[in-house]
């Protein structure tokens, strides 16, 4: 299905000023009509990847393909891609209507059609009636929505969204998340969405790319990435997690926190040192006798849906627990969990090795 690959990066590196390497050999393929998210900490190269796709920058080495065509030297105005900029980049000398209409006017679309399409786009971002406002008279969140309207109105094949919801309040943000996802599915366009916010990434994406320091750490569906993080970085970045050192005694037997547990992973060397991840919501508070690990509750925060307990075991490892019930601060409690809740991460395993091992061992279970 090579036809369905809309964007391909082939070992792309990007170096600024001949010494700062921002992207260190990034390769990926994006399928047409899917919702992708680039997730990673500030400065990891998310915007840089978007700039390479949009055509504002050229790769230092490697190739970028759009629709199977190498586009390293194709200027931005000749690419079927539109961007929602991180800083909105709205034209201050034009009003809201003209900002949204800019791309259509360049394409010499008829005035009547421009009116209809701009109205549609503004309606989509809940800004009907704001046509004649100056940009300076709009709030940050409203500007962000004008920027979204300005990109989608052109009906491009690919839409790049650089943290497009960061300035919105929680309610509007959730609403826009639903609407963007709905729009993407309705139009069947490829969306590449950048965010810091892992919950947003998990909620919206078909596939997530977790980036760190110019490398793709892991890519996969939200469920894959959440359930099987490849390393400490990903586990830590995607949701809260408890990460402790452990030893893989043999397949399906792991030792950590001073005990040996059954688990569902394998394929490692006997007695290999590994990292163990258990998600806070997979830990259940019980009596000390019934628990697999015995901990003391250190602090407790009410988070709305659940209580977040910070607890410590005898070795001094911290265990975060999400519990629906209150616990007593200072009390000794037991923590129980299923073998499936234990996720094993090998140190320095690459994504390919990880996938191969996972394939071999999940089939058996």
């Amino acid at each position, binding site marked *: 299905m090579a036809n369905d690959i809309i964007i391909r990066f082939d070992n792309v590196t990007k170096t600024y000023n001949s010494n700062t390497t921002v992207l260190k050999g990034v390769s990926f393929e994006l399928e047409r009509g899917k919702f992708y998210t680039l997730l990673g900490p500030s400065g990891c190269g998310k915007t840089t990847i978007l700039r390479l796709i*949009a*055509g*504002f920058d050229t790769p230092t080495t490697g190739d970028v393909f759009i629709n199977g065509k190498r586009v390293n030297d194709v*200027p*931005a*105005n000749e690419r079927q*891609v*539109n*961007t929602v*900029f991180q*800083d909105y*980049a*709205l*034209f*201050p*000398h*034009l*009003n809201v209507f*003209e900002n949204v209409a*800019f*791309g259509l*006017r*360049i*394409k010499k679309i008829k005035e009547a059609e421009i009116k209809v399409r701009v109205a549609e786009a503004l309606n989509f971002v809940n800004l009907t009636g704001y046509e004649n406002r*100056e940009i*300076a008279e709009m709030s940050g969140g409203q500007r962000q929505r004008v920027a979204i309207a*300005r990109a989608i109105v*052109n009906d491009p094949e690919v839409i790049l969204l650089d943290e497009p919801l960061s300035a919105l309040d929680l309610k509007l943000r959730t609403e826009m998340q639903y609407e963007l996802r709905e729009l993407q599915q309705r139009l069947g366009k490829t969306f590449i969405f950048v965010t810091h916010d892992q919950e947003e990434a998990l909620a919206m994406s078909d596939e997530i790319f977790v980036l760190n320091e110019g490398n793709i750490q892991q890519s996969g569906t939200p469920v894959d990435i959440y359930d099987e993080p490849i390393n400490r970085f990903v586990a830590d970045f995607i949701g809260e997690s408890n990460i402790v050192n452990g030893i893989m005694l043999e397949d399906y037997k792991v030792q950590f926190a001073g005990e040996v547990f059954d688990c569902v992973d394998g394929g490692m060397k006997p007695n290999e040192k590994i990292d163990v991840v258990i998600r806070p919501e997979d830990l259940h508070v019980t009596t000390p006798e019934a628990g697999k690990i015995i901990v003391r509750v250190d602090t407790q925060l009410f988070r709305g849906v659940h209580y977040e307990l910070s607890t410590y075991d005898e070795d001094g490892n911290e265990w975060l627990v999400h519990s629906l019930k209150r616990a007593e601060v200072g009390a000794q409690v037991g923590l129980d969990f299923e073998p499936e809740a234990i996720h094993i991460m090998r140190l320095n395993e690459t994504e390919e090795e990880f996938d191969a091992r996972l394939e071999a061992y999940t089939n058996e279970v």
Partner: protein
Amino acid sequence: MKFKSKASLIPYLLWVALFVIAPIGLILYYSMLDLNGDFTLANYQNFFTPAYLTMTLTSFWYAFLITFFTLVISYPTAYFLTKMKHKHLWLMLIIIPSWINLLLKTYAFIGIFGLYGPVNAIIEVFGFDPKQILFTDFSFVFVAVYIFIPFMIIPIFNALDKMNPSLIYASRDLGASAFTTFRRVIFPLTIEGVKSGIQVTFIPALSLFMITRLIAGNKVITLGTAIEQQFLVAQNWGMGSTIAVFLILIMFASMLFTRTKKKGGRA
């Protein structure tokens, strides 16, 4: 609060009264006196004779030429300056000559353009006869443009420098070519800088007289030289003031013409 803000206006009002209103009043007053100090409107009648009207037109024409060439040179220069690595240093280097006294620079050009100056020396190297460069329209416009360039570059540079570079990317992203981006985004966003540049060039260029005399050698008769002549040579303060009144009117008109408009509307 109200009292305080009014009190703080007093020095400003004094300044305006002493240095703006009073001189203009004096000029108006003198413009209505004849050579014997009697009241007359003859000076105004005089101004509408072909001699003075031609002079006004010539002034306009030269001021226009000077402003035009200054703009044509300054805009691209300012644009490339903003792209340079050490842009503020380069800007400084362009501004520094404007600190040197105008008279000195003018004399320097007399030396450069003179019959025995370096320009003619180069012409001779190529086997041509020395040319009279001084006292031509060309040398007048050239020197004036040279002098005004820094004043034009500064506001344009500031406007370009202030512009968010993402806007250019956004325009390209939306399908605009480099030229369309310039026409629809960069130029409209820097038009205010261009307008202030035109103001600081066109208005002084209308009343140039020293360069006119020294470089153009009395060939170019502009309103500036006419005023100077009326006051210093003909001793006809009335006529000199009348020309000055019209010069002031023209200045106001050109300021209105280049004033900042409200933003908005189509690209």
